[in-house]
């Protein structure tokens, strides 16, 4: 089935990357390094989860990293200044902050009928500015150990951040791949007309999609905060593009209708492996950014070529 072709291409590319780095450096192929890749990719991975829903629905979300920063600041502020101590409450606060901003974004798209690109570009600035205002322009440091343990600690030998990542992907994979909600998102991304004509409440669907994407951005903010022990208003600059890159690498159609959480997961791994491998080979971060761009372009060319061939 041609729908799975980009997924297979992504898997092959991931295997190729792993093979190259395994030969290039002896430090690459170890369990600790694999965990390190997953752990480092947790934040971008969770952002990519949210981005997958939006792209599946034919939209784009440029605000996810800004929302992530805002959620991290709001949660850190509540932990430091408002007497919140329970990690579960902090987790929910981060997620709900993101969901609120995401829902607002969806509502604005519905009301203005403007493209999601424009609205999320505006929300990116607003979220980032709110984070800066609330934090007074500097990160909120010094969180309790029960919070930082969720970003830096391990559970059953596995980094806690990785568990958040995997949990996010499993939940999102279920929602997108196996429920009516996910089917409607994909159908709407495929043909808004078809979704409307079959009675799907498309405005509500858009609102829910952006709220869900915001929720995952909020969770990404929580994980970032727990990993860095800070609510940072400058957190994740440029992460939105990395998240979108991961989704596209994973075989999603940027115009909507086709997206796979498994593909996005592999896309996140591709980026993580690439950055990790280049770091192990002591290649400058400037070149790492260059390689990410090249990989994305290659993926686009490959997909175009294989589509023509079939």
């Amino acid at each position: 089935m041609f729908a799975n072709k980009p997924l297979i291409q992504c898997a092959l590319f991931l295997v190729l990357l792993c093979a190259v780095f395994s030969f290039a450096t002896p430090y690459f192929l170890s369990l600790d390094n694999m965990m390190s890749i997953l752990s480092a990719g947790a934040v971008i991975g969770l952002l990519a989860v949210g981005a997958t829903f939006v792209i599946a629905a034919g939209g784009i979300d440029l605000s996810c990293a800004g929302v992530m920063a805002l959620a991290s600041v709001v949660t850190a502020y509540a932990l430091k200044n408002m007497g919140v101590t329970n990690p579960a409450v902090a987790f929910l606060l981060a997620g709900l902050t993101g969901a609120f901003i995401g829902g607002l974004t969806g509502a604005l798209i519905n009301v203005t009928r403007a493209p999601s690109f424009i609205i999320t570009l505006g929300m990116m600035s607003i979220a980032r500015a709110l984070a800066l205002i609330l934090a007074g322009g500097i990160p909120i440091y010094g969180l309790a150990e029960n919070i930082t343990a969720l970003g830096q600690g391990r559970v059953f030998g596995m980094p806690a951040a990785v568990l958040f990542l995997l949990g996010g992907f499993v939940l999102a994979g279920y929602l997108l791949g196996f429920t009516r909600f996910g089917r409607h998102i994909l159908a709407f991304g495929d043909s808004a007309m078809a979704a409307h004509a079959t009675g799907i409440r498309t405005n509500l669907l858009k609102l829910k999609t952006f709220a869900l994407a915001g929720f995952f951005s909020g969770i990404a903010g929580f994980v970032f905060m727990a990993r860095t022990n800070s609510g940072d208003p400058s957190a994740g600059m440029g992460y939105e593009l990395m998240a979108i890159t991961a989704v596209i690498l994973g075989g999603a159609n940027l115009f909507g209708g086709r997206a796979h959480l498994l593909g996005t997961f592999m896309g996140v791994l591709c980026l993580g492996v690439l950055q990790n491998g280049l770091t192990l080979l002591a290649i400058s971060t400037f070149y790492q950014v260059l390689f990410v761009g090249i990989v994305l372009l290659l993926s686009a060319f490959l997909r175009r070529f294989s589509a023509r061939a079939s």
Partner: protein
Amino acid sequence: MSNSLTLENISRNFGALKVLQDVAAQFTGGKITALVGDNGAGKSTLLKIMAGALAPTSGTIKLNDEEIAGLNPAHHRARGIEMVYQDLALAKQHHVAANIFLGREIACPLTGLLKTKEMRAQTEALLEQTGIKIPQLDRPVGALSGGQQQAIAIARALLVPPKVLLLDEPTAALAAKEVDMVLDILRQQREKGLIIILVSHRLNDVLAISDNIITLKHGRIFNDRKTADTNLAEIVQDIVS
């Protein structure tokens, strides 16, 4: 008892433009009515109003004497009015069963998990009942022929047996053999007592399938003829005069 759909003084304006003006008509079950007319006559607008995709500026629609309120296709679908759009409104990256069940997916009420096997089995049964042959149900709909896509769009409208079937240009982009398939499906549904209303520019198809032909002109009903008592020349005359 035969179903009936009644339009009472339906008007629709787009800004200052009066697309439909006081359209009144009654359609009964077991008959196929064709709406014909020149471009801009208001045929598709009238069809969309009957489907709930557009709200009338004024006027009412009654299905079996019950007024249909509400402004969305879901509301009309729930009351048994289905429409097959000219562009078919199919999700072309999705497979056949996903399109047939779009908006009506069967899912476990507890877990929300889609029952894909059940939907596929029902799709196979529906296609068999309607005489539609599609060899590869797992293929994305966009990879199928125009006739097969049209048949899927019609099959989707028949999934929950409707009272009214509306079709906008159902044969416009089809080859002769595919036209025959679509017309056979419509004849079969007429036998089942459906109210079928179609808009078409292909007057030969209209004459082949319909029981009566309504000509719309400048947003009003110009003529309503029994197909058996008319011919192509008269219909063309109605449209262009």
